[in-house]
């Protein structure tokens, strides 16, 4: 499908040739077009890192904030204007390391946003150190004897916190990535899509070939509403399952819990203060 409405034209991009980010960008644009989202009604929020530059490479509203802090502003944006589609997108270091606390609490809060993580198991922009998802023993200029920490498992964490939509895809599979993105974007509530992605410059272990040997697709008859089974699949290590692990349908989104939206969904900037009510409130302090 033609993604012209999101295309930036001939711009200078900071990604390495052959980077998985290009495929993710293409899948994202196609997913947006196919779900009928207008660039003016979309905001992409990111943190810092190579993946976090993605909002600059498609034509839409962007909030490229601080390292690790994409989820709080994304939540704030959706909270004051429910009419916007909000995607928070960054890399594994940004979302799972620096922003790990927000990841946990965004799941609990369940804002109606989509969280896309480019997970290449390494730090790119700072040149090759271990990331929270680097596999044990991964040797880097800092982890000279190999990382000794257990890799962070975002899928297992999200399922354990009863996230409303949890999926993993592989950047090398364009069609599948796009289809899952579409489902995540149209899902009501917080959805997380962890995208396995090679880093052609700094990760010589987890290459395209490595991923192809270490992934499999959840079966057609897999039931994503079975949380226990989802968790069991999430902790598999030898071969990493791809697909929608878990969906909690009908879980109230953050906005649905807010009294401001109990009667109407008008964005807050279109509402006015009831000054008389405020004067009345102050007057009530005369007798209270």
């Amino acid at each position, binding site marked *: 499908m033609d993604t012209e409405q999101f295309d930036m034209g001939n711009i200078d991009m900071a990604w390495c040739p052959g980077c998985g980010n290009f495929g993710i960008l293409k899948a994202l644009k196609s997913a947006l077009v196919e779900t009928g989202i207008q660039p003016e009604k979309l905001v992409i929020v990111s943190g810092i890192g190579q993946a976090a530059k993605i909002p600059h490479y498609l034509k839409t509203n962007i909030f490229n904030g601080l390292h690790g802090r994409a989820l709080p502003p994304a939540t704030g944006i959706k*909270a004051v204007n429910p009419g*916007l589609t909000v995607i928070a997108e960054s890399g594994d270091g940004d979302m799972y390391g620096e922003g790990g606390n927000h990841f946990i609490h965004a799941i609990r809060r369940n804002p109606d946003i989509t969280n896309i993580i480019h997970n290449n198991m390494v730090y790119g922009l700072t040149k090759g150190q271990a990331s929270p998802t680097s596999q044990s023993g991964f040797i880097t200029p800092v982890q000279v004897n190999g990382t000794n920490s257990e890799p962070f498992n975002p899928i297992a964490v999200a399922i354990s916190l009863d996230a409303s939509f949890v999926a993993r895809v592989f950047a090398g599979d364009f069609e599948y990535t796009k289809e899952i993105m579409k489902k995540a974007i149209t899902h009501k509530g917080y959805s997380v899509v962890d995208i396995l992605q090679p880093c052609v410059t700094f990760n010589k272990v987890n290459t395209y070939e490595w991923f192809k040997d270490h992934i499999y697709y959840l079966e057609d008859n897999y039931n994503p509403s079975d949380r226990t089974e989802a968790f069991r699949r999430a902790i598999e290590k030898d071969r990493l399952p791809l697909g929608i692990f878990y969906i909690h349908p009908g879980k109230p989104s953050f906005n649905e819990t807010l009294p401001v939206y109990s009667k109407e969904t008008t964005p807050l900037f279109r509402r006015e203060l009831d000054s008389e009510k405020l004067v009345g409130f102050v007057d009530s302090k005369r007798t209270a």
Partner: protein
Amino acid sequence: MENSILKKTEDISIVLCGKAGQGIQTVEQILTRLLKLSGFHIFATKEYMSRVRGGSNSTEIRVSSNRVSSLLNRIDILIPFSAAALGHLKKRISNETLILADKEIIADNEDNKYLNWIDISFSGIASDIGGAIYTNIISVGIIAGLFKVGADELDHYIEQFFSTGGKKSVEKNRSAVQKGYEIAQELLHSKKIQIDVAQNADVSGEIIINGAEAVGIGAIAGGCNFISSYPMSPSTSVLTFLSRNAENFNLIAEQVEDEISAINMALGAWYAGGRAMVTTSGGGFALMEEAVGLAGMIESPMVIHVAQRPGPATGLPTRTEQGDLQLVLYSGHGEFPRIILAPGKLEDAADLTHRAFNLADKYQVPVFILTDQYFIDSYYNIPSLNLSETHITQYIEKTDHDYKRYRLTKNGISPRGIPGYGEGLVLADSDEHDEKGHITEDLDLRIAMVDKRLAKLTGITEEAIPPELVGKKDYKVLLIGWGSTFHVIREAMENLGRVDVALLHFKQVYPVHPGTLDYLKKAERTIVIEGNATCQFGSLVKITTGFDIRNKILKYNGIQFTVEELTEQVKAILDQEG
């Protein structure tokens, strides 16, 4: 001892002190409102320890014929609920202080030297009613009785106050109050206590609020519709106030996982058209600093309430200080403009917080409301808050197809669009960016963008709120203060009784008003008064104006200046050089 006499007119300072959990706050809440409704001018402030049970916490309630709004050292009537309370307040208890207490409390205290006390069997009466938890309510009855609050009004108020606790609770509290009231009547009848404080019918119709409520009301008046914060004493009461009123005033109030999330979420809210604020203290604000810089870079409005407490680190969590002015002034890395406001009066707090939203929106900068524990927790009655001039100016522009968020302009202000309003796209980037908002490493453009952001300081300075002069214009001595010390300095100045002394109070502390130097040069003597150890505002005045304020009165033990100590300290300086 039983021959005690207290004879007092005009202005009475009552202190209640006990362990955390003994209900001192309930007494403060009931008495301030009840006595105000009866036509007395009221001031109340509390000092408390960072614990949930035990220790010693106290509340001072001033009851007066005239307007009162500052902390005294003097205690006229003291009701201690524990022996430790007497030790805790040792420095404030004088021979003139009348103590109403169980004789066991007097006997148990370490010094055991207090002569001026009346034995009141709080514990006996309370246990007759149903337990020690009624001790505090007996004291409500006593004080209400001493000020001849109508028995029916008192009964009605207590009934209302405890109505949510069920019928049994109402009855027991009513009888506790009744007992206290009878004790007061005996004390008055036997002339052991004679109180003559004039009531004023107009006062009963005034409002009574504390600093946190004033900030909260100002926020609502300024169109605040979003607050995200993390609880931290003493700033939490603003979050509590706005949360309680969220439904009523169409605002979103969210307690978030940490202060970093709080301010970043609030920045997201502003970006999408909300009017957001955060409230925090010391360490919490330190965590927010990176995002203060983000506000500077993406030119986002932001309103930040910082209720100061003594640091560094955890410091004295529940005490007061004016120690974070320089922290706020230099917070965030890089160079960008900001505005710092510091209310001295309750009216200021509402007005400045209201203005903060408009200023933040107009100049697209962070605006700080700098208060402290003393200010946030102090109550007094005021005629009202002037909300008739309330206006919310929203500086949001509908975008067109070619919209550029950071268009270079002469005054530095680029019209602010929001996503989803107009045909244009709105880009915010923490990197240095071009006019559109995309990352740039064009170093000439970098200069243009820095200059553009800093250019806003010109307009901000022109619009600075001038300092308030209290006293005669032909002063010889100028006292300089800012923020929460306004009323204490004012009352100390009145005590001095010298017509040549004036107070210059700053409610905008940054940028310093351009007229400041003229005020300072006119004085023969200048004295800056601050609640910190390093004279932070004095330094800022020197940097801004070149003027070195010669005398300094600084306090940093965690307690606000009392009127008496400040009077003495100013007097000592004035006497030194005559």
